[in-house]
Protein backbone atom coordinates (compact mmCIF):
# COMPACT_ATOMS: atom_id res chain seq x y z
CA UNK A 1 0.00 0.00 0.00
CA UNK A 2 1.46 3.32 -1.06
CA UNK A 3 0.86 6.22 1.34
CA UNK A 4 0.54 9.64 -0.28
CA UNK A 5 2.64 12.56 0.96
CA UNK A 6 -0.48 14.33 2.20
CA UNK A 7 -1.65 11.21 4.04
CA UNK A 8 1.74 10.70 5.70
CA UNK A 9 1.89 14.37 6.68
CA UNK A 10 -1.59 14.30 8.22
CA UNK A 11 -0.73 11.08 10.08
CA UNK A 12 2.45 12.63 11.53
CA UNK A 13 0.59 15.80 12.59
CA UNK A 14 -2.14 13.66 14.15
CA UNK A 15 0.33 11.44 16.02
CA UNK A 16 2.13 14.50 17.36
CA UNK A 17 -1.19 15.98 18.51
CA UNK A 18 -2.03 12.71 20.25
CA UNK A 19 1.41 12.62 21.95
CA UNK A 20 0.85 16.09 23.42
CA UNK A 21 -2.69 15.17 24.44
CA UNK A 22 -1.33 12.09 26.26
CA UNK A 23 1.47 14.19 27.79
CA UNK A 24 -1.15 16.50 29.29
CA UNK A 25 -3.35 13.64 30.51
CA UNK A 26 -0.46 11.81 32.17
CA UNK A 27 1.19 15.04 33.36
CA UNK A 28 4.62 14.43 31.88
CA UNK A 29 6.06 17.17 34.13
CA UNK A 30 6.14 14.48 36.84
CA UNK A 31 8.42 12.31 34.70
CA UNK A 32 11.35 14.47 33.60
CA UNK A 33 14.17 12.88 31.64
CA UNK A 34 16.50 15.61 32.89
CA UNK A 35 15.23 17.50 35.93
CA UNK A 36 13.76 20.94 35.05
CA UNK A 37 14.97 20.70 31.49
CA UNK A 38 14.03 17.77 29.25
CA UNK A 39 10.64 16.04 29.34
CA UNK A 40 9.37 13.10 27.21
CA UNK A 41 7.83 15.28 24.45
CA UNK A 42 11.14 17.16 24.12
CA UNK A 43 12.70 14.02 22.63
CA UNK A 44 11.07 15.07 19.37
CA UNK A 45 12.95 18.38 19.31
CA UNK A 46 16.26 16.75 20.19
CA UNK A 47 16.17 13.52 18.18
CA UNK A 48 13.51 13.73 15.42
CA UNK A 49 13.65 17.37 14.26
CA UNK A 50 17.19 16.99 12.82
CA UNK A 51 15.58 14.87 10.06
CA UNK A 52 14.50 18.18 8.50
CA UNK A 53 18.12 19.35 8.66
CA UNK A 54 19.28 16.17 6.91
CA UNK A 55 16.69 16.63 4.15
CA UNK A 56 17.76 20.28 3.74
CA UNK A 57 21.41 19.14 3.53
CA UNK A 58 20.46 16.68 0.75
CA UNK A 59 18.85 19.56 -1.16
CA UNK A 60 21.93 21.74 -0.68
CA UNK A 61 24.17 19.00 -2.08
CA UNK A 62 21.73 18.35 -4.93
CA UNK A 63 21.45 22.03 -5.94
CA UNK A 64 25.17 22.73 -5.75
CA UNK A 65 26.01 26.36 -6.42
CA UNK A 66 24.05 26.97 -9.62
CA UNK A 67 21.02 29.26 -9.57
CA UNK A 68 18.99 31.13 -7.02
CA UNK A 69 17.45 28.01 -5.54
CA UNK A 70 20.88 26.77 -4.46
CA UNK A 71 21.36 29.89 -2.31
CA UNK A 72 17.78 29.51 -1.09
CA UNK A 73 18.37 25.96 0.20
CA UNK A 74 21.68 26.92 1.81
CA UNK A 75 19.79 29.60 3.75
CA UNK A 76 17.05 27.13 4.67
CA UNK A 77 19.66 24.68 5.95
CA UNK A 78 21.41 27.41 7.94
CA UNK A 79 18.06 28.57 9.38
CA UNK A 80 17.13 25.04 10.43
CA UNK A 81 20.56 24.40 12.00
CA UNK A 82 20.34 27.64 13.99
CA UNK A 83 16.81 26.82 15.13
CA UNK A 84 17.97 23.40 16.27
CA UNK A 85 20.97 24.97 18.02
CA UNK A 86 18.57 27.38 19.74
CA UNK A 87 16.39 24.45 20.87
CA UNK A 88 19.41 22.65 22.33
CA UNK A 89 20.67 25.81 24.02
CA UNK A 90 17.18 26.27 25.45
CA UNK A 91 17.33 22.86 27.09
CA UNK A 92 20.89 23.46 28.20
CA UNK A 93 19.85 26.67 29.92
CA UNK A 94 16.99 24.77 31.59
CA UNK A 95 14.51 27.37 30.55
CA UNK A 96 11.54 25.47 31.85
CA UNK A 97 12.28 26.72 35.33
CA UNK A 98 10.29 29.82 36.23
CA UNK A 99 13.32 32.01 36.89
CA UNK A 100 14.79 33.75 33.92
CA UNK A 101 18.47 33.01 33.50
CA UNK A 102 19.01 36.46 31.88
CA UNK A 103 20.62 34.93 28.83
CA UNK A 104 19.04 35.91 25.54
CA UNK A 105 21.40 33.85 23.38
CA UNK A 106 18.54 31.46 22.60
CA UNK A 107 16.37 34.31 21.37
CA UNK A 108 19.14 35.73 19.21
CA UNK A 109 19.60 32.31 17.62
CA UNK A 110 15.86 32.06 16.95
CA UNK A 111 15.81 35.61 15.54
CA UNK A 112 18.66 34.71 13.15
CA UNK A 113 16.70 31.64 11.98
CA UNK A 114 13.73 33.80 11.00
CA UNK A 115 15.96 36.04 8.87
CA UNK A 116 17.55 33.00 7.22
CA UNK A 117 14.12 31.50 6.49
CA UNK A 118 13.08 34.86 5.07
CA UNK A 119 16.22 34.86 2.89
CA UNK A 120 15.41 31.32 1.74
CA UNK A 121 11.98 32.40 0.53
CA UNK A 122 13.26 35.60 -1.11
CA UNK A 123 15.95 33.75 -3.07
CA UNK A 124 13.47 31.06 -4.06
CA UNK A 125 11.11 33.71 -5.43
CA UNK A 126 13.83 35.85 -7.01
CA UNK A 127 13.70 34.26 -10.51
CA UNK A 128 9.94 34.87 -10.53
CA UNK A 129 10.10 38.43 -9.22
CA UNK A 130 8.38 39.88 -12.32
CA UNK A 131 5.19 38.01 -11.47
CA UNK A 132 5.02 39.34 -7.92
CA UNK A 133 2.54 42.19 -7.88
CA UNK A 134 2.00 44.84 -5.23
CA UNK A 135 -1.52 43.45 -4.79
CA UNK A 136 -0.20 40.02 -3.69
CA UNK A 137 2.33 41.58 -1.32
CA UNK A 138 -0.27 43.90 0.25
CA UNK A 139 -2.68 40.97 0.69
CA UNK A 140 0.12 38.99 2.38
CA UNK A 141 0.93 41.91 4.69
CA UNK A 142 -2.75 42.34 5.63
CA UNK A 143 -3.06 38.64 6.53
CA UNK A 144 0.28 38.68 8.37
CA UNK A 145 -0.80 41.56 10.62
CA UNK A 146 -3.26 39.10 12.17
CA UNK A 147 -0.19 37.39 13.71
CA UNK A 148 0.81 40.56 15.53
CA UNK A 149 -2.67 41.66 16.65
CA UNK A 150 -3.34 39.01 19.37
CA UNK A 151 0.05 39.55 21.07
CA UNK A 152 -0.27 43.33 20.96
CA UNK A 153 -3.81 43.15 22.33
CA UNK A 154 -2.73 40.84 25.15
CA UNK A 155 0.21 43.04 26.14
CA UNK A 156 -1.91 46.21 25.99
CA UNK A 157 -4.41 44.65 28.44
CA UNK A 158 -1.76 43.66 31.02
CA UNK A 159 0.70 45.48 33.20
CA UNK A 160 4.12 44.18 32.24
CA UNK A 161 6.58 43.55 35.06
CA UNK A 162 9.44 42.10 33.06
CA UNK A 163 9.72 44.51 30.15
CA UNK A 164 12.91 42.96 28.77
CA UNK A 165 11.57 39.41 28.48
CA UNK A 166 8.14 40.48 27.25
CA UNK A 167 9.84 42.74 24.71
CA UNK A 168 12.03 39.88 23.53
CA UNK A 169 8.98 37.58 23.20
CA UNK A 170 6.97 40.30 21.47
CA UNK A 171 9.50 40.44 18.61
CA UNK A 172 8.54 36.93 17.48
CA UNK A 173 5.06 37.73 16.10
CA UNK A 174 6.65 40.49 14.00
CA UNK A 175 9.23 38.02 12.66
CA UNK A 176 6.43 35.52 11.93
CA UNK A 177 4.64 38.20 9.92
CA UNK A 178 7.82 39.00 8.03
CA UNK A 179 8.36 35.36 7.04
CA UNK A 180 4.70 34.77 6.20
CA UNK A 181 4.58 37.35 3.39
CA UNK A 182 7.03 35.63 0.96
CA UNK A 183 5.59 32.19 1.85
CA UNK A 184 2.11 33.41 0.98
CA UNK A 185 3.38 34.96 -2.28
CA UNK A 186 5.02 31.63 -3.19
CA UNK A 187 1.79 29.69 -2.65
CA UNK A 188 0.04 31.97 -5.15
CA UNK A 189 2.92 31.93 -7.65
CA UNK A 190 3.36 28.18 -7.73
CA UNK A 191 -0.35 27.42 -7.41
CA UNK A 192 -1.40 24.19 -9.20
CA UNK A 193 2.19 23.05 -9.85
CA UNK A 194 4.09 20.18 -8.23
CA UNK A 195 6.05 22.73 -6.19
CA UNK A 196 2.79 23.88 -4.60
CA UNK A 197 3.05 21.22 -1.87
CA UNK A 198 6.35 22.70 -0.66
CA UNK A 199 4.85 26.16 -0.35
CA UNK A 200 1.61 25.07 1.28
CA UNK A 201 3.60 23.21 3.95
CA UNK A 202 6.00 26.16 4.38
CA UNK A 203 3.10 28.58 4.78
CA UNK A 204 1.31 26.32 7.26
CA UNK A 205 4.64 25.91 9.08
CA UNK A 206 4.95 29.69 9.40
CA UNK A 207 1.35 29.89 10.66
CA UNK A 208 2.23 27.22 13.27
CA UNK A 209 5.27 29.28 14.28
CA UNK A 210 3.04 32.36 14.68
CA UNK A 211 0.49 30.49 16.81
CA UNK A 212 3.25 28.91 18.90
CA UNK A 213 4.98 32.26 19.50
CA UNK A 214 1.74 33.91 20.57
CA UNK A 215 0.81 31.07 22.93
CA UNK A 216 4.37 31.09 24.28
CA UNK A 217 4.22 34.85 24.92
CA UNK A 218 0.94 34.54 26.83
CA UNK A 219 1.97 31.44 28.81
CA UNK A 220 5.35 32.86 29.75
CA UNK A 221 3.67 36.05 30.89
CA UNK A 222 1.16 34.11 33.00
CA UNK A 223 3.96 31.77 34.14
CA UNK A 224 2.02 28.68 33.11
CA UNK A 225 4.33 27.55 30.30
CA UNK A 226 5.32 23.89 30.50
CA UNK A 227 6.80 21.19 28.26
CA UNK A 228 3.28 19.97 27.38
CA UNK A 229 2.22 23.42 26.21
CA UNK A 230 0.27 23.91 23.00
CA UNK A 231 3.12 26.21 21.94
CA UNK A 232 5.48 23.24 21.82
CA UNK A 233 2.94 21.21 19.85
CA UNK A 234 2.81 23.96 17.22
CA UNK A 235 6.61 24.19 17.15
CA UNK A 236 6.73 20.42 16.58
CA UNK A 237 4.18 20.76 13.77
CA UNK A 238 6.34 23.47 12.23
CA UNK A 239 9.30 21.04 12.08
CA UNK A 240 7.09 18.34 10.57
CA UNK A 241 5.62 20.68 7.95
CA UNK A 242 9.04 22.06 6.97
CA UNK A 243 10.43 18.53 6.83
CA UNK A 244 7.67 17.26 4.56
CA UNK A 245 7.92 20.37 2.37
CA UNK A 246 11.65 19.90 1.88
CA UNK A 247 11.15 16.16 1.29
CA UNK A 248 8.60 16.89 -1.45
CA UNK A 249 11.29 18.95 -3.14
CA UNK A 250 13.73 16.05 -2.87
CA UNK A 251 11.13 13.84 -4.54
CA UNK A 252 10.57 16.27 -7.40
CA UNK A 253 14.14 17.39 -8.03
CA UNK A 254 16.15 14.73 -6.26
CA UNK A 255 17.01 12.40 -9.13
CA UNK A 256 19.85 13.29 -11.46
CA UNK A 257 19.41 12.87 -15.20
CA UNK A 258 21.12 9.77 -16.50
CA UNK A 259 22.72 10.48 -19.86
Amino acid at each position, binding site marked *: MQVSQKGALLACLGIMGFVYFAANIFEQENYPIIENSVYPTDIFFIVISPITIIIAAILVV*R*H*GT*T*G*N*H*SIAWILFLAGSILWYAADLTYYYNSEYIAENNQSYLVDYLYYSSYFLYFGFMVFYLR*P*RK*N*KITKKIIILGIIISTSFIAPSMYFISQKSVDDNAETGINLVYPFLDSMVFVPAFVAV*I*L*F*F*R*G*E*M*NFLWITMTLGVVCMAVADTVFLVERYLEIFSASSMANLFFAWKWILFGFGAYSHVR*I*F*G*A*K*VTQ
Partner: protein
Amino acid sequence: MNFSVHPEENIDKAFLAFCIEIVLLRMGKPQYEKVVSRLEKEYQTYIPECDKTPLALKRVLQDIFGDAYDDILKEIRSEIGEIVSKKYYTDFLTTMTK
Protein backbone atom coordinates in the same frame (compact mmCIF):
# COMPACT_ATOMS: atom_id res chain seq x y z
CA MET B 1 18.87 15.95 -32.57
CA ASN B 2 17.76 16.83 -36.12
CA PHE B 3 19.43 19.74 -37.82
CA SER B 4 18.02 21.56 -40.78
CA VAL B 5 19.91 22.00 -44.01
CA HIS B 6 19.35 25.75 -43.60
CA PRO B 7 22.12 27.19 -41.42
CA GLU B 8 19.96 30.08 -40.19
CA GLU B 9 17.31 27.70 -38.91
CA ASN B 10 19.98 25.77 -37.02
CA ILE B 11 21.17 28.98 -35.38
CA ASP B 12 17.59 29.83 -34.34
CA LYS B 13 17.07 26.32 -32.98
CA ALA B 14 20.26 26.42 -30.95
CA PHE B 15 19.55 29.94 -29.70
CA LEU B 16 16.01 29.07 -28.62
CA ALA B 17 17.29 26.00 -26.76
CA PHE B 18 19.96 28.16 -25.12
CA CYS B 19 17.33 30.71 -23.98
CA ILE B 20 15.10 28.00 -22.47
CA GLU B 21 18.06 26.37 -20.74
CA ILE B 22 19.41 29.60 -19.30
CA VAL B 23 15.99 30.47 -17.82
CA LEU B 24 15.73 27.03 -16.19
CA LEU B 25 19.32 27.08 -14.93
CA ARG B 26 18.73 30.49 -13.38
CA MET B 27 16.38 28.68 -10.97
CA GLY B 28 18.74 25.76 -10.43
CA LYS B 29 20.37 22.75 -12.03
CA PRO B 30 17.87 20.25 -10.56
CA GLN B 31 15.01 22.31 -12.05
CA TYR B 32 16.66 22.17 -15.47
CA GLU B 33 17.37 18.45 -15.15
CA LYS B 34 13.80 17.75 -14.06
CA VAL B 35 12.39 19.42 -17.18
CA VAL B 36 14.88 17.57 -19.41
CA SER B 37 14.05 14.25 -17.80
CA ARG B 38 10.26 14.74 -18.00
CA LEU B 39 10.48 15.75 -21.66
CA GLU B 40 12.49 12.66 -22.40
CA LYS B 41 10.39 10.23 -20.35
CA GLU B 42 6.91 11.46 -21.15
CA TYR B 43 7.28 12.94 -24.63
CA GLN B 44 10.51 11.37 -25.95
CA THR B 45 11.78 14.81 -26.89
CA TYR B 46 14.56 17.23 -25.88
CA ILE B 47 14.82 20.96 -25.27
CA PRO B 48 16.44 21.62 -28.71
CA GLU B 49 13.47 19.83 -30.30
CA CYS B 50 10.91 21.96 -28.50
CA ASP B 51 10.44 24.23 -31.49
CA LYS B 52 8.65 21.26 -33.07
CA THR B 53 6.95 20.11 -29.86
CA PRO B 54 6.22 23.28 -27.90
CA LEU B 55 3.13 21.81 -26.28
CA ALA B 56 5.23 19.13 -24.59
CA LEU B 57 7.46 21.78 -23.03
CA LYS B 58 4.40 23.80 -22.04
CA ARG B 59 2.78 20.85 -20.24
CA VAL B 60 5.97 19.91 -18.42
CA LEU B 61 6.59 23.49 -17.26
CA GLN B 62 2.97 23.88 -16.14
CA ASP B 63 3.02 20.56 -14.27
CA ILE B 64 6.15 21.45 -12.34
CA PHE B 65 5.90 25.19 -11.82
CA GLY B 66 2.13 25.73 -11.86
CA ASP B 67 1.01 29.33 -12.27
CA ALA B 68 4.64 30.50 -12.46
CA TYR B 69 4.64 29.11 -16.02
CA ASP B 70 3.48 32.49 -17.44
CA ASP B 71 6.47 34.20 -15.89
CA ILE B 72 8.89 31.54 -17.13
CA LEU B 73 7.54 32.06 -20.65
CA LYS B 74 7.90 35.82 -20.25
CA GLU B 75 11.52 35.31 -19.18
CA ILE B 76 12.21 33.11 -22.21
CA ARG B 77 10.71 35.85 -24.38
CA SER B 78 12.92 38.54 -22.84
CA GLU B 79 15.95 36.24 -23.11
CA ILE B 80 15.36 35.94 -26.87
CA GLY B 81 15.53 39.72 -26.99
CA GLU B 82 15.16 41.90 -30.04
CA ILE B 83 14.81 39.06 -32.54
CA VAL B 84 11.65 37.83 -30.81
CA SER B 85 9.56 39.27 -33.66
CA LYS B 86 11.11 36.80 -36.10
CA LYS B 87 8.55 34.27 -37.36
CA TYR B 88 10.46 31.27 -35.96
CA TYR B 89 10.18 32.65 -32.41
CA THR B 90 6.68 34.11 -32.69
CA ASP B 91 5.36 30.74 -33.89
CA PHE B 92 6.95 29.02 -30.90
CA LEU B 93 5.80 31.61 -28.36
CA THR B 94 2.27 31.80 -29.78
CA THR B 95 1.85 28.03 -29.36
CA MET B 96 3.29 28.21 -25.86
CA THR B 97 0.88 31.04 -24.92
CA LYS B 98 -2.31 29.41 -26.28
